[in-house]
């Protein structure tokens, strides 16, 4: 059961973590160049 929780959460959260960080980096970049 615990491994299933780990896998299910991991499958959803790993892409979510990366995409959230990417969105933040793109949105917060300096635009005044």
């Amino acid at each position, binding site marked *: *059961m*615990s*491994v299933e*929780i*780990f*896998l299910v*959460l*991991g*499958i959803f*959260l*790993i*892409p*979510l*973590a*990366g*995409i*959230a*960080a*990417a969105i*933040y*980096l*793109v949105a*917060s*970049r*300096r*635009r*005044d*160049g």
Partner: protein
Amino acid sequence: MEPDALVRDYLGRLEAAAWPLPAERRLELVAEVREHIESALAESGQRDEVTTRNVLDRLGAPEEIVAAEAEGMDRRFGAAFIGAQPAALGFRWGASEVAAIAFLTAGSVFLPFIGPLVGLAFAWSSTQWTRRQKWVATLIVVGLLMVPVIALMGARVSVGA
């Protein structure tokens, strides 16, 4: 003169010269230039007086940087650094930046765990994001990656209890 004192003096002159700029932009400009100096010194592998003076000389006078900024010029000063990746006051999409975003998005899907971490490594190697922005991105990734680990640990504790 101590290298750190030289940098402090240069940044002080920059801040003083930047008085016509909005306060927020002035602080940002000083932070950006400080970061560029630090990365140039780090890349040169030396932190003595001569190297520091060379880095500052190649940057140009603080007044020139402010003038370029005030005129909204698309001025690059990255070429001033020895072996450093060219950087500019504005954002530049280089290989590190594209790789960071690619690994954080597609990499997260196709390379679980490794993808986002490689993306973060590229983001940290970039000179285009500030240290604060890199830390926030790192916390987002690490924070969300910790959720399944904590859930797994929690489930193990409850099973063991």
